[in-house]
């Protein structure tokens, strides 16, 4: 596939990186030549320096035969114009734009074919905000990923001494809580994956991925570890795009304190937020933290755009007694360093948000993609189409499907019903199938499996 990416920022380069390995022709356009050079040194793609909203730049970048346009520059307006031009002048089939401003998002007709011709709009900050909101809702979980419009969720949790399941085989789950349907999709022990079987014994410190209907998350979590009280007090450091959105999303249900080091931004934030206590100061200032009782904080989120500051302030908060600390870390090398240490969750924004882009780029009817474990693993929601003749999944029982080793069907969502992926379930047409893949290399095979072939036999 020919893919044109506009903007080589965080989002653009991560998308490029993850798509380049999937045998696509990729061109990246940015106005900053230095960024492009860095990208080209690492990856096998074409780059072009220029204004992404100018037809001449687009033409040079080969928009005429591009299959997918990804407009992910910093500017909403450039992205909108690029999509409009691509549609009107070059008939580009698929146009995806990154739109940050809630003003545009509030008026969905801005994106339709009469106006800016955006097929899909994504807002990384919003995705990240929702992601963190889930983590605050379930403070015990490491990751909560939604499928099928939130009907089913994939949850990552670290097993701790005190959970009834720890030290017992997985089959114990069924006998211990027969009324709750869940399925363990993967277990990672000391960074190595185990294929979960009925006799696999859960150990203290295991990272467990399980799938359950969203309403059952809490009861399954309680099997893996002792549960704490629900979070009430949240402290956020950094009032940028993410911190602001998060505070806005949380301020009604939680007591939110937001620390920001820029006075002007503080005033703007304080004007915009209704119930959040906006504090002017440095997120790494331990005096300020003590003064604001960091020890009583249930969830501490360091969300500035400075990795080092985020790590430091999270460490300080943890030392000061914060129950759970989350640090936003852009550099993937750092993520591995700190995750699982004193910092409970190291968030890599690129991997959190890339899934939503990938879903549009993938072949077959892929509804949702979640990138896991820094891009190494993936969870996909695929829609099964066709019939027993044209499809290799429809009309078959799960144990009849030719899944590659390391891929598991976690659950099937049929209408409003969430069915766990037991071996005797058969797939019907239009089912949403949630597949967990421990190695990304298998994704292509899974996609192929779900494609409807014409005249298959």
């Amino acid at each position, binding site marked *: 596939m020919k893919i044109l990416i506009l903007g080589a920022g965080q989002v653009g380069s991560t998308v490029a990186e993850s798509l380049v390995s999937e045998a696509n022709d990729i061109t990246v356009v940015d106005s900053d030549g230095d960024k492009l050079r860095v990208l080209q040194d690492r990856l096998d793609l074409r780059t072009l320096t220029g204004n992404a909203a100018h037809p001449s730049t687009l033409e040079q970048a080969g928009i005429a035969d591009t299959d997918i346009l990804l407009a992910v520059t910093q500017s909403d307006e450039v992205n909108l114009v690029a999509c409009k031009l691509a549609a009107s002048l070059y008939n580009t089939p698929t146009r995806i734009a990154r739109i940050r401003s809630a003003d545009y998002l509030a008026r969905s007709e801005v994106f339709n074919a009469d106006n800016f011709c955006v097929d899909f709009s994504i807002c990384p900050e919003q995705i990240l905000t929702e992601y963190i909101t889930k983590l605050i809702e379930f403070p015990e979980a490491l990751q909560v990923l939604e499928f099928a419009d939130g009907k089913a969720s994939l949850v990552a949790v670290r097993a701790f001494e005190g959970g009834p399941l720890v030290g017992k085989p997985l089959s114990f789950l069924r006998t211990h809580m027969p009324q709750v349907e869940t399925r363990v999709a993967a277990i990672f022990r000391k960074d190595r994956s185990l294929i979960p079987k009925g006799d696999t014994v859960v150990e203290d410190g295991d990272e467990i991925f399980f799938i359950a209907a969203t309403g059952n998350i809490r009861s399954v979590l309680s099997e893996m570890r002792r549960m704490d009280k629900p979070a009430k007090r949240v402290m956020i450091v950094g009032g940028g795009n993410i911190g602001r959105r998060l505070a806005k999303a949380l301020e009604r249900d939680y007591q939110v304190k937001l620390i920001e080091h820029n*006075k002007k931004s503080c005033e703007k*934030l*304080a*004007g915009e937020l209704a119930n959040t206590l*906006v*504090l*002017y100061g440095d997120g790494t200032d331990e005096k300020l933290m003590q*003064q*604001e009782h960091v020890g009583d904080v249930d969830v501490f989120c360091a969300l500035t755009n400075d990795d080092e500051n985020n790590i430091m302030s999270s460490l300080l908060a943890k030392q000061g007694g914060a129950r759970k600390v989350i640090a936003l870390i852009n550099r993937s090398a750092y993520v591995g360093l700190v995750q699982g240490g004193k910092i409970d969750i190291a968030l890599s924004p690129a991997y959190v948000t890339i899934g939503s882009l990938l879903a549009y780029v993938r072949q077959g009817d892929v509804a949702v993609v979640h990138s896991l474990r820094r891009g190494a693993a993936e969870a996909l929601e695929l829609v099964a189409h066709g019939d027993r003749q044209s499809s290799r999944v429809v009309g078959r029982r799960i144990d009849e499907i030719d899944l590659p080793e390391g891929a598991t069907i976690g659950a099937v969502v049929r209408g409003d019903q969430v069915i766990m992926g037991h071996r005797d379930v058969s797939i019907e047409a239009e089912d949403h199938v949630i597949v967990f893949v421990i190695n990304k290399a298998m994704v292509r095979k899974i996609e192929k499996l779900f494609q409807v072939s014409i005249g298959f036999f």
Partner: protein
Amino acid sequence: MHRALTVIHALGLMLVVFSAAYVIPVTTSLIYGDRTMLLDFLLAMAWTFAAGVLMWLLTRRHKGELSIRHGYLLVVAMWMAMPAFATIPLLMMLPGLSFTDAYFETMSGLSTTGATVLTGLDTLPPAINVWRHELQWLGGLGIIVLAVAVLPLLGIGGRQLFKAEMPGPMKSAGLTPRIADTARNLWVVYVAITLVCIGALKWAGMGWLDAVCHGFSAMGLGGFSTHDDSVGYFNSPLIEFVLIVFMLFAVINFATHFLAWHGKTLGIYWHDTEAKAAIGLILVSCFGIAVFLWWNGTYPEFLTALRHASFNVVSIGASSGFASVDYGKWPIFAPMWMLFVGCIAASSGSTGGGIKMIRTLVLVKQAGREFLKLLHPSVVNPMKIGGQVIPNSIVFAVLGFIFLYFMTIATLTFVLLISGMDFISAFSAVVACVNNFGPGLGAVGPASNYQGLNDFQTWICTFAMLVGRLEIFTVLILFTPHFWRR
């Protein structure tokens, strides 16, 4: 000096506009076939018109753009000249009336205070009564706002004049791109609601004359009545109810009325924090005072207590000044609370007087901010009212206003005490005049009026009304040395 001539030039033009106001009493005297009054009013009209034209012509070479400071000068000069010219028919009609008292009466009218030095209101010629009430109505939204509306080519800093006359810390000057349109729209809404009010009063049982007069004074939140017994004369719960409704209308910012009318939606009122607070405070006070009066036995029946409490609390709370009973005889808590509500309840941009609810809200929130600042020294909490951030400069302006407001009341009370008045009368007279609601307590209570005051005391009260109507700064700025420095 020639700048002062520029002010006089504009003043002349405004007086010409003002002389048009005599059309209504002239029409009234025509309807009632009162030839003497017709002549008096035509003469007064001619005088005002001639004086205006003369001032305008003599200074026509000094026509020019007015600076900010001359805008203030013009507004104050106009507000002193208008009552003076408006006394002409009163002096001609009532030979016994001194200029001091006549000036007090017209100032009371224009400033929408509603205090009167006249008795025997019932026997006054209809034209005189209409004239008194029309003054209140004109003064309600502001004669200069009207001038800005009808004279877009006046060539004088319209926006500046608008700001100097319109009450409230944040002027609703931004409704439309052009200030003349804004002023015109506000007046259109004002006229429309007044016509509805007059119709409703007629329907409720008043005669046409009474309906027109009370419609004028209710919408202007003035408080003049055509009867010595004020609204108590009618002794009709229906009339009282209609007046309550329209006084509550008038206590809301007319910009909000305009937006509601323009957008054909009532949701606007819900978003007007100031209006909600004002109406809420007044309604709670009505109910509270009704319970209080019933509980301590002033009125044995709760419904009677509720009726009288509602009308008088709304009247004083909205800074109108009608009375249906002698509330001066109620236990002191009730009238004092009414005075207090009257000081703070009216919205900015309404026709009411006093501190204005928005300033009260700013002060309350400022106190809250100080508390939060003590608990969280690093907190950043801008002043927010109805989700809107209020800049600190406005907060300071409000604090300055409050200081001047209380200093004005204290100083004028002391002056009246020196002149020999008793404390309750002096204090309540000053409060009633500065806040433009009219009747005070004691010697100036609802059962009596300001007739008993000597000339000096009358002038002090007149000054208090002017200062209160123009919200202190506009008047007192003329007394600062900086104003006169070049």
